[in-house]
């Protein structure tokens, strides 16, 4: 892997693989000889990264054969969490797991088996297919916190999620709770390029982020107050007459109702809620509305804000509609699903899940837009207009906190098994103490992993999973884009690793699904999917090598031809779909999950406002803390605090501090910065310490600095529409860690 390796030597094959360490799926060229990868580099021909790679991409070979990787199927020997393992064969593991799942289905029903996922680096259609055929509706991811509710609310209003920003001819970009400067390097490059050509950039973020440092306008709002801001923007745009009258006239319904609805949501009304100057609110609204075409790029922050999340994403979505920034050149495009290749949804076998099982989906009685009641309705509308539906995996899932609660309480029914794939729930899901209890309690826990994470430490079986270089990747934005970028495996999986497609398929075959899994390998399945594109290739690898990606010709203003996929076939400024599901048809103000206005007593006890979860380099979610080359750059967790506040609390830069909410407390080091409001605290996400003991009670220090100890999943803090729980806009307090309670950053024990 060094410059000393001669890459021109004979026998080297260059494989067109990709990086898997975030969603961008940057292209990676792998130089392979005799089944070993000698070197990797960014693929200059990949349209996403054009040759570049971020920190994480560069450590692909360190990741591939890191000494801490799980390389063989493991079965626990001692008690759960004892750290004692026995190496077994895949056949034994699959036989035993299948037998157990069969037994659970017979005793408790298929719905007693659930699966947890993380972010997208898995073959999710395969998991969904397995679950549908097995009969359980209870698969889930952190979907409710990340894009999915936004996708569904926007699809309810205008028939698809306009996630494709047509930036090339855009004049204004709103980054709403989104920091590609730390989380999406290729995106940020595009913004940098366009900024130099005059693109105006508005960043809405409590923190002065990397992206904010390049912006024309920064709106540092109170965490969780996005709804107030969005409503005020609607007010400014509508009542100052900055809307797109022709688009509203021709394509929308309900404008007058909306105008009346937002009449009182003035910038002056929003100012005390958002902590922003009314003029700054106006300036932002005007900048977006008058620099057309413009874009509002999706950002995760609203999805993570709990109670007001659904209404806020609804209001944000309406901003595009009233300004006509939909499916026009330079605006946010409604591409619809691909009509040309087989989509994820078509691979999922959703039609095989009986209606009575769909009805049992945990949380679907409350959080309807992201579960069968809402998805079913919206998917049908999409099929009517687009011919195909959005992916069900992700868009239609059990509500994770409710599943963990079901494990603990047996309500609404017993949950007996949890199959975990590509996630470390203790660190990634809300209210870690509850998640940890659920993992300890659940009868049967299987984890498919790269590493021995705090969650896999508690498992009955840990199965070794192949990484990005060891599997083909079919990149189509959670199965919802009309384009595909296809990459191949550089090598066969090392040791006894397998792809999760293999895992679900082999498990399915053992549970009587054999004829539903005609594809023996992921390449075969992918070939089946790209075959209709008609490139005349005879294998998936040939497609990767000769075609690589498929981008259909852009067709703007498609709604003129097919309408919008809503009941009225128009953009519904007053949403009939939301109303039918029992939700407000227009966004109405709700305060942040925890706030000083609705709960002054709580605010007295916890006077600061907390936001958690923003991405930061060089890590990703709870990953990569083992990779020394990355960890060296940030080996300890840091929280942001304004120097004025720190001074009052006697906190100096670099001090360990406790951050405490009603749920619990964690410690991180203080980073004194003028980049946040004196009343706001920002913690880093994901932290655990894989260098510590991999068994109970230490569990890799998974609670010590883990920001999810602080988040809230209480029903009252969850968004009633999409089920988001509260990661942002919480109330907290901060105080210094007394020196006697810590030893050092990387090996100190919790002093509680």
């Amino acid at each position, binding site marked *: *892997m*060094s*410059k*000393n390796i001669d890459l*021109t030597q004979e026998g080297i094959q260059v494989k067109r693989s990709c990086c898997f360490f975030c969603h961008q799926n940057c292209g990676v060229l792998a130089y392979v000889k005799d089944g070993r990868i000698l*070197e990797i*580099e*960014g693929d200059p021909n990949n349209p996403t*990264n054009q*040759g*570049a*790679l*971020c*920190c994480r*991409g*560069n*450590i692909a*070979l*360190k990741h591939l054969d890191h000494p801490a990787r799980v390389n063989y199927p493991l079965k626990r020997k001692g008690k759960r969490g004892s750290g004692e393992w026995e190496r077994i064969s895949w056949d034994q593991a699959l036989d035993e797991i299948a037998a157990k799942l069969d037994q659970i289905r017979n005793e408790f029903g298929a719905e007693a088996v659930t699966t947890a996922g993380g972010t997208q680096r898995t073959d999710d259609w395969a998991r969904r297919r397995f679950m549908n055929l097995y009969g359980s509706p209870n698969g889930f991811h952190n979907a409710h916190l990340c894009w999915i509710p936004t996708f569904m609310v926007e699809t309810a209003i205008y028939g698809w999620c306009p996630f494709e920003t047509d930036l090339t001819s855009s004049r204004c970009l709103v980054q709403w709770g989104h920091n590609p*400067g*730390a989380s999406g*390097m*290729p995106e*940020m*490059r595009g913004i*940098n390029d366009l900024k*130099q050509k005059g693109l105006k950039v508005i960043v809405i973020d409590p923190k*002065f982020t*990397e*992206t904010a*440092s*390049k912006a024309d306008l*920064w709106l*540092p709002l109170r965490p969780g107050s996005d709804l107030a801001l969005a409503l005020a923007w609607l007010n400014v745009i509508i009542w100052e007459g900055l809307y797109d009258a022709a688009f509203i006239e021709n394509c929308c319904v309900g404008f007058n109702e909306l105008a009346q609805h937002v009449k009182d949501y003035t910038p002056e009304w929003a100012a005390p809620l958002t902590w922003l100057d009314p003029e700054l609110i106006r300036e932002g609204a005007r900048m977006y509305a008058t620099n057309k075409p413009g874009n509002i790029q999706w950002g995760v922050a609203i999805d993570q804000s709990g109670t007001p999340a659904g209404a806020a994403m609804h209001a944000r979505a309406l901003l595009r509609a009233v300004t006509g920034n939909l499916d026009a050149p330079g605006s946010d495009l409604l591409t619809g699903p691909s009509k040309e290749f087989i989509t994820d949804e078509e691979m999922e076998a959703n039609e095989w899940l009986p209606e009575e099982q769909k009805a049992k989906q945990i949380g679907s009685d409350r959080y309807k837009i992201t579960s069968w009641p809402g998805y079913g309705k919206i998917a049908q509308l999409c099929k009517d207009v687009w011919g195909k539906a959005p992916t069900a995996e992700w868009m239609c899932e059990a509500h994770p906190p409710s599943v963990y609660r079901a494990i603990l309480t047996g309500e609404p029914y017993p949950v007996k098994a949890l199959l975990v794939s590509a996630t470390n729930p203790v660190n990634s899901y809300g209210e870690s103490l509850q998640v940890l209890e659920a993992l300890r309690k659940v009868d049967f826990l299987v984890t498919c992993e790269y590493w021995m994470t705090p969650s896999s430490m508690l498992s009955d079986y840990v199965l070794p999973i192949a990484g990005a270089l060891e599997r083909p990747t079919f990149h189509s934005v959670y199965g919802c884009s009309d384009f595909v970028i296809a990459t191949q495996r550089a090598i066969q999986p090392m040791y006894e690793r397998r792809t999760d497609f293999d895992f679900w398929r082999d498990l399915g075959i053992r549970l009587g699904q054999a004829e539903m899994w005609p594809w023996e390998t992921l390449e075969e399945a992918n070939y089946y999917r790209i075959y209709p594109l008609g490139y005349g290739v005879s294998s998936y690898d040939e497609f990767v090598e000769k075609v690589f990606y498929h981008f259909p010709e852009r067709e703007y203003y498609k709604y003129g031809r097919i309408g919008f996929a809503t009941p009225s076939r128009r953009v519904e400024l007053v949403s009939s779909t939301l109303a039918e599901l029992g939700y407000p048809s227009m966004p109405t103000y709700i305060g942040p999950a925890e706030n000083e206005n609705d709960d002054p007593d709580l605010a007295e006890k916890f006077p600061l406002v907390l936001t958690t979860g923003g991405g930061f*380099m*060089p890590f990703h979610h709870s990953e990569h803390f083992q990779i*020394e*080359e*990355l960890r*060296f*750059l940030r080996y300890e967790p840091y929280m942001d605090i*304004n120097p004025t506040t720190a001074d009052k609390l006697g906190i100096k830069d670099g001090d360990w501090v406790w951050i405490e909410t009603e749920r619990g407390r964690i410690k991180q080091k203080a980073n004194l*910065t*003028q*980049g*946040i*409001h*004196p009343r706001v605290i920002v913690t880093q996400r994901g932290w655990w310490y894989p260098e510590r003991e991999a068994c109970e009670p230490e569990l890799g220090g998974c609670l010590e600095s883990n920001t999810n100890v602080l988040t809230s999943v209480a029903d009252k803090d969850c968004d009633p529409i999409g089920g988001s729980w509260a990661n942002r806009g919480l109330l907290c307090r901060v105080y210094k860690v007394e020196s006697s309670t810590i030893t050092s950053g990387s090996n100190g024990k919790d002093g509680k």
Partner: protein
Amino acid sequence: MARYAMVLDTRRCIGCHSCTVACKVHNDLPVDMIYNPVTTVGPVGVFPHVHMEFIPLLCMHCANPPCVECCPTTASQQREDGIVWVDENKCVGCKACVMACPYGARIPNHEKGVVQKCDFCKDRLVLGKEPYCVATCHQRARIFGDLDDESSEVYRLVNQENVVRLLPELGTEPYVFYIMD
């Protein structure tokens, strides 16, 4: 003859540390060796009126490199194309250059007992490739090239943009230029 130089566009750099990692991993450096840190300046000012810059650092490949003249073994040397490099076979690890370099660009390798540094990936240049830190940069914030070549991007930037050099008062004449906002 070429004269290699690098331009760092701080308007584009976002402090993602990709260059730092790419350099370390691909040059096979021990974990604790960093040739090219990226520092953060700020946020400067008082909330909410702040600004922030990211400053990628590396060897400046100076025209008057103090690290070369102080080397007692001649291991530290400069090529005609300006690249300052260390011949590891000759280096004895006296750290005179570490102390002499005003830019922190000289890093002792404790495994090998020698001092190492950025050499603009001179072995890659032979293959027609750019230094790792340049190739890996998503933001295209690092621009590398030949300053003697009037058609090069670095020539254009150095002559048309508002560029500064670090610690110019020391008279080292760096060949690394910074475009500041």
